[in-house]
């Protein structure tokens, strides 16, 4: 395996990277000064991957919504007991999550990291499903779905995604529906597994008091004969425009919620570049961050509270500039936002605001290195993006005010905007 050392003198940190012939990428941040180790073994496979084939297969497969998440649940089981039991023997705390574009398995431990890493690499690489165990899981995931059905934050976000996207599967719920998961069987799970849980599509990220060489040796030994696989992901002809500009739902809440989104087109799609992501992040801080004119104006006018946030939500084939919060008048929030965008386009970005945004982003980046969990998460983002952590720092440093003013021109098209709201049930 090819081994590369990245160092940052400013941050006094180093990252050891391993690139295996199979395509697996390993990213390790040694933290000898800390006690805990956080490791994450992930695959580029999430809820949006509903249509795919392996190179050489004649047809694309269309699989039920929620199957990536279902597979995540089932992977903890094996013929001789489940992975949780194995982690219980070491004291590690294990978990997993599925998002739109990835599935990650992880553990945190205060000792025996090597043993835990062996368990992690082993259980994720050894699927075992039977019709009986698949059926049992339907009840558990059914209750997980029900739990989200009562979550207004979840409802308002998916309301927005369904208003913005007509075909792209980012519009479907990560866990699927009670009906869609009823159609999942062991054969389908194996087909998804064989396609996506291949080293060429996976990454391993570790932060903690570990020995990087031992990890890379271990991976080398495990993957001796593994060959990469080429995955073809289904393309969804997504129109430029939105499905509908406004969507609303009533729920048992007392405080109305909103999500306002602009459908964006990445510079050179389908994936957003690091530069684009970083520029948008700095830009959003200046447009709608806590010290922005907009945020403070909305606060004084009683239109938002401190639950308000702005973010850039992006992955394979989708990109949304997203504003979320609680408000009695979300339309007024949208109007104020567009007015402010217009002003910034005319007057340009304030030099002081730009400097403060960069300084505080730098400080927050330094703070990240206090936490093995946050480091491992950031390494996973790098693996997904094909970048490295210090390149991200560099990208933040390189942003200029000019870049942001350029970026502002191509964003926030009112014609590609949608507003989703959740309001209290009228009795």
């Amino acid at each position, binding site marked *: 395996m090819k081994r590369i050392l990245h160092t940052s003198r400013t941050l006094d940190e180093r990252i050891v990277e391993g690139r295996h012939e199979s395509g697996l990428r390993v990213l390790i941040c040694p933290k000898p*000064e800390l006690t805990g180790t956080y490791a994450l073994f992930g695959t580029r496979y999430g809820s949006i991957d509903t249509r795919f084939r392996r190179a050489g297969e004649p047809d694309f497969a269309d699989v039920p919504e929620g199957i990536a998440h279902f597979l995540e649940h089932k992977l903890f089981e094996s013929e001789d007991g489940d992975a949780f039991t194995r982690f*219980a023997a070491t004291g590690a705390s294990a978990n997993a999550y599925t998002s739109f574009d990835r599935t990650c398995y992880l553990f945190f431990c*205060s*000792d025996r990291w090597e043993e835990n890493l062996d368990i992690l690499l082993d259980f994720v690489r050894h699927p075992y499903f039977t019709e009986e165990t698949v059926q049992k899981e339907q009840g558990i995931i059914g*209750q997980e779905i029900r739990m989200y059905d009562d979550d207004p934050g979840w409802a308002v976000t998916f309301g927005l995604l369904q208003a913005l996207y007509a075909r792209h599967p980012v519009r479907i719920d990560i866990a699927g529906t009670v009906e869609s998961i009823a159609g999942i069987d062991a054969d389908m799970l194996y087909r998804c597994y064989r396609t996506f849980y291949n080293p060429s599509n996976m990454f391993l990220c570790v932060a903690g008091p570990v020995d990087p060489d031992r990890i890379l040796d271990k991976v080398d030994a495990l993957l001796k004969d593994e060959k990469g696989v080429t995955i073809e992901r289904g393309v969804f002809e997504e129109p430029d425009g939105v499905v509908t500009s406004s969507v609303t739902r009533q729920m048992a809440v007392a405080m109305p919620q909103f999500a306002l989104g602009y459908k964006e087109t990445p510079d050179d799609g389908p994936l957003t570049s690091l530069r684009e992501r970083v520029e948008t992040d700095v830009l959003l801080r200046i447009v709608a961050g806590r*010290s922005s004119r907009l945020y*403070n104006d909305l606060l004084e006018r009683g239109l938002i509270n*401190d639950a308000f946030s702005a973010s850039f939500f992006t992955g394979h084939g989708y990109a949304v500039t997203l504003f979320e919060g609680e408000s009695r008048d979300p339309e007024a929030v949208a109007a104020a936002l567009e007015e402010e965008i217009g002003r910034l386009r005319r007057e340009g970005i304030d030099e002081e605001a730009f400097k403060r945004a960069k*300084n505080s982003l730098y400080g927050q980046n330094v*703070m990240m290195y206090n936490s093995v969990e946050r480091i491992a998460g950031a390494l996973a983002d790098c693996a997904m993006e094909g970048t490295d952590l210090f390149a991200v720092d560099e990208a933040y440093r390189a942003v200029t005010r000019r870049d942001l003013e350029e970026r502002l021109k191509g964003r926030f098209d009112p014609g590609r905007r949608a507003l989703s709201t959740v309001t209290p049930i009228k009795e």
Partner: protein
Amino acid sequence: MQTQTLPLGNAAEGFSLVTPAFKTTRVAVDVYLPLEKESAPAYYLLSLLMSDGCAAYPTPRALTERMEALYGASLSVTAAKRGDSLVLAASVVFVDDRFLPEPVFEEAVALLREAVFRPALDASGAFCEADFRREQRMHKEYILGKLNDKRGYARDRCLALLCEGEPYGLSETGTLEQADALTPAEVADAWRRAMREGFFRVSVLSPVERPGVFPAFERELAAFDRAGAGRPAEDLVRPARETVRRVDERMSVAQGKLCLGFRVGMTGGDDETAPVMVFADMLGGGPYSRLFLNVREKESLCYYCVASAVRRKGVLMVDSGVEFANMERTEAAILRELAAMRRGDFTEEDLAASKRALDSALRAVCDSQAVTDRWYAERWFEKRRLSPAEMAERVKAVTREEVVRAAESVAPDVVYRLLGKEEAE
């Protein structure tokens, strides 16, 4: 890790810990106050006002700009329950000077002192009307917003029933009516009362020794008449009710919430609570626990079913999200697992698994400045202030008999259920 405690005048103490592993410094001020129904909402609104401005940086915007200029320093002020006390907690976390082009240490600590000791009051000594209205609105919206999180809402309701009549059963935010009735003068009075009567704990967790922080706080405190300040009252512990109280509530929800509230007979400091910790973890901690393995995995009844004990209050709660039709079955399944633990119907490996998981979690406490600070703050008034490592030793020593005794001491007290609208009994 060498912790240090030093006196800072009447009812005020400093705590310091050198933490070379981190790239940040954390300086925090905890003001311990009595948790009372009448005063809690004023303290809560006070915390909102303090986190959004002070005399030197009077608007949310001015304060945020200041934090950004200090390379993303984060100032926070909250008011939250800690046992039967209410704690007004202010803190600042900022990057260590080693990683910055210019030093910020002195200025960041000064910002915390400004936030705590010099709020933005007008000439009459009250909060400014406009600031007050803005934060009062957010206070009320926060109270309304609690209903948005159904699990949190159900847990709060169960806890309120479980600790009815005790300070811990109160909500720190108060009711909508209480928040609405507050005035700018009343909240300013709450600030003065906190400065005069509260017990102050000032903590510094930094990569290098920073002894200069404490004298500055001591000088600030000397400006107030603190003759009436003192330690908070001991936490109340009461036995379970004779008959279990059952409360059902109905709402338009897709999933029901079941919360079982218990009283635990074994309470006290860390010396006595280690068996309760192990028992609660074995019952409903990680994925190796009885509730996970049986109620979730075997019976497929729920996605989560978790047991959590509140230290020193002698309170334990089990909560789960379940189909309305399965409420009774789930309740019976949970009680069955408790009964099994009382009978000692568990293996040595079950016991060892929980002890290992707790050991791992306890050893990781020192990996976060905030968690370490919180650890010592929680134990500030105990006879023996155990370190996480000492607590880990206690946990390791817990025997099967002690776990059974802890299980036997647990008595059901409240059953709270959140049910759907259409559901007919």
